């Protein structure tokens, strides 16, 4: 989905050819997302098939594409539509924690801490990259890193909250006493 609209967005700025699209896309997304050139061409072909882009010229072996009116309409609609997650998360971590809570012979706190450490280590890695980035030149990259960091931070907070809930249930008297 995102690659399709990413290429459309780049073509909306100026007509260009496949390889340039690949490098521009990678630069825009802060090098976080390496595309292989075959994927770019397959996507361009699908876009052309759907009438969203068209060939601008075919000088030599390079074929430039440009966006069509229908393409612009679809792109604007895409930007205008918020991204909403569909239903409860089904990711592995959530499932693992839920199962650990239910299982009697697993130390949930241990599971949570292990995950927390891993998440924080991940955060540290992102933050290192952030610390090295140039706040002006690497703006897109920083915004991408923020996305990753805040998602991971949310995960840590979820872990903290889970632990607090579990403590509250297993030590209700002490909590009540406070």
């Amino acid at each position, binding site marked *: *989905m995102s690659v399709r609209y990413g290429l459309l967005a780049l073509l909306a700025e100026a007509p260009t050819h496949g390889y340039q699209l690949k490098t521009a896309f990678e630069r825009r997304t802060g090098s976080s*997302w390496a595309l292989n050139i075959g994927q770019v061409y397959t996507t361009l072909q699908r876009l052309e098939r759907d009438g969203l882009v068209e060939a601008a010229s075919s000088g030599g072996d390079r074929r430039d594409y440009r966006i069509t009116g229908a393409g612009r309409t679809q792109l604007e609609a895409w930007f205008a539509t918020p991204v909403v997650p569909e239903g409860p998360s089904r990711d592995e971590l959530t499932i693992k924690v839920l199962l650990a809570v239910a299982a009697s012979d697993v130390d949930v706190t241990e599971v949570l801490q292990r995950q927390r450490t891993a998440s924080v*280590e991940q955060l*540290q*890695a992102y933050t290192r*990259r952030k610390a090295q980035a140039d706040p002006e030149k690497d703006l897109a990259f920083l915004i991408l890193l923020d996305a990753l960091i805040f998602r991971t931070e949310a995960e840590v907070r979820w872990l*903290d909250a889970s632990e607090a809930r579990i403590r509250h249930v297993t030590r209700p008297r002490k909590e009540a006493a406070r």
Partner: protein
Amino acid sequence: MTTLVQLEGATRWFGSGHTEVVALHPTDLSVAAGELVAIMGPSGSGKTTLLSLVGGLDRPSRGRVIVAGQDVGALNPRGLAVLRRRTVGYVFQDLNLLSGLTARENVSLPLELDGRSPGEARTAAEAVLASVGLTELGDRFPDDLSGGEQQRVAIARALVGGRRIVLADEPTGALDSITGESVMRLLRAHCNEGGTGILVTHDAAHAAWADRVVFLRDGRIVDEARPAPSPEFTASASRPELATSGSDAA
């Protein structure tokens, strides 16, 4: 690498007998020069107690706390005060600054307390303010500064006079994330230049600026995090979501 802060079985309890509360069980921890360590844990886990031991605000009930070669437990109140003036710098969550003093005077305060000449203290304060990019705020009073500016002035004060150990207790707690980041960048820069920082926080994003994150629970260190290998952001990225959305498009 030089070890600047060393806890050896450091323990702190309050009260005695029936009312005894152990805030910190025997704890070992060492922090080297150039290292920024974050301490995370829920409320009441002993974070602030640990920090106040290193800061010479409190003495361990048992065990040793060695800060820049000095045994905190063996210092008398005056020695502790000298330690706080010359060796460590403390930053609280808020209300760090004396409202009757300008930003520059707040920064030069530890030097003045240590008996340096006003001129010397002023020069040093100006240098530190310049290094944290706050030169133009020097003549303002705390009530005229934003929260982030106040915290940065507080960090400048913790650094003034070439002190190497900065202790920060939730320094970003009252700030928004981007302002908080500017405070963390200051701490990071301090440690990159060979200083040492210990940071107490419950915010993972800010703790992640540290070289090490120590997890504290019920007065005990339960785990420690060090940075994962730097992510490469390839198509087969470590984040599953990225990979998924990428393959969707394919």
